[in-house]
């Protein structure tokens, strides 16, 4: 329900219009006591943190928030947007971690694990902990050296919970569920390149 000159606030549909969520309980559901969920220790949303040895036995977490420079990959190669960044894909790194790894701000780095690698520019970001790299998602593959995108280091295992109660989250509903792959189960290492 959009109105001129007024923002659409989150949850208006539920709180103002009183339309329940299309879940089994009609509410936002965090707790699920289905047998399979209990067996896989997922009665509340639980991170697996594992996508196989090749992808997950590396020292650094890698996460990929939304960018402010586009909507997903839209406008990511726009020169006016790019001139307000570093001009090429960049990966954020704590200056302390960078010092340990011999990486300088603005230098070329290789981010890798057992399943793949990509190259990017290092950008110092003191607000990151030392065990984590950050890179905004949505960079287009064609913007990367050798067209190796950041997805090349991302793996995910099939989530058996998605099969519970007829494929989909407990029950399949069109547009209400999709098999999004998780970036957070892979871990990486970084080196000067």
């Amino acid at each position, binding site marked *: 329900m959009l109105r001129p000159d007024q923002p659409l606030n989150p949850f208006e549909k539920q709180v103002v219009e009183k339309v329940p969520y299309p879940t089994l309980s009609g509410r936002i559901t965090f707790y699920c006591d289905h047998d399979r969920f209990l067996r896989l220790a997922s009665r509340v949303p639980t991170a697996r943190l594992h996508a196989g040895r090749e992808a997950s036995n590396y020292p650094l977490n890698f996460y990929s928030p939304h960018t402010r420079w586009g909507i997903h990959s839209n406008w990511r190669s726009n020169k006016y947007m790019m001139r307000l960044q570093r001009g090429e894909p960049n990966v954020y790194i*704590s200056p302390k971690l960078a010092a340990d790894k011999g990486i300088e701000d603005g230098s070329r780095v290789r981010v890798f694990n057992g399943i793949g690698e990509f190259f990017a520019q290092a950008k110092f970001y*003191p607000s990151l902990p030392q065990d984590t790299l950050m890179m905004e998602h949505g960079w*287009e593959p064609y913007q990367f050296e050798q067209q190796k995108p950041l997805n090349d280091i991302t793996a995910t295992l099939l989530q058996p919970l998605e099969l519970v109660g007829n494929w989909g989250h407990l029950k399949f509903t069109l547009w209400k569920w999709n098999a999004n792959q998780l970036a957070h189960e892979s871990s990486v290492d970084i080196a000067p390149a």
Partner: protein
Amino acid sequence: MSTPVKRQLSMVMDLNKCIGCHTCTSACKLMWTNRNGREYMYWNNVETQPGEGYPRGYAEMGGGFDSNGNLKIGKEPSAEDYGIPWDYNYEESLMTGTDPWMRPNVKPTWGPNWDEDEGEGEYPNSYYFYLPRICNHCDNPGCLAACSRNAIYKRQEDGIVLVDQERCRGYRYCVTGCPYKKVYFNEKISKSEKCIFCYPRIEKGLPMACAKQCVGRIRWVGYRDDVDGPIHLLVDRYKVALPLHPEWGTKPNVFYVPPTSPPRLTADGAVESESRIPIEYLEGLFGSGVREAFATIAAERQKKSNGEDSELMDTLIGYRHSEMFKLS
């Protein structure tokens, strides 16, 4: 020494609401500076502070006035200090396929937002905030005082500072005289150019493009003498909006609500009393009014928490965007 005008159009920006999205920068860029020798200019820029700013290191370049009111001639930024705009091999990488991937035509080494999000301190006590900057349309403009051609003038009806393009001979004294480095030299036409407060829009009753497009609703526009307007309320009545670097002596007409910040954390995650952004640092930017402004905001915010009315908080929230602009 101020230049008296009949009325002064002014702007307030609330740094607590700025999310650093650069929509203002983009609006300004596409409206005024994407062509004809202005490509490198950002009449509106958003910089991360603490940081180098735009152009790089401008705060150390001088200009403005000393305590006796004498103009100080500063340094002219280099092209690298602004950042030389780079281009892309769009055609070769995306159309003809003759280049294997898309990249800048030169390896960028500095740009107008190069040190974005760096700030100071270490995780988890790192801190930074965004500072959008335009021409301050000062009461006592350093650029105007520096111009030997009398090409820079302040409009009587609204105090907008403009460069007369007919009189300008491109001597660039204005560039060095402005301590905010908000006058730019256009090499293509050998004249200086700057933020014009979107006067063609103002004359049609529209707010500046940067203010109109601001998704964070951080900007209020109005006349300083309008006692019912937002500028008077924020700057003069509640005194929560302060000029940037008042010690530079130009008497800016753009004001900022200084950024509050969460408390510092100890190594084991306990909350300390000190705020993450040091108050002394903010006083270095916005002058001695910072503590009083923070105290006022805290008191008014508490009123709102108690369910009471607060004219100040209602104004700062900006429920209706159109009410943030009072152009008559």
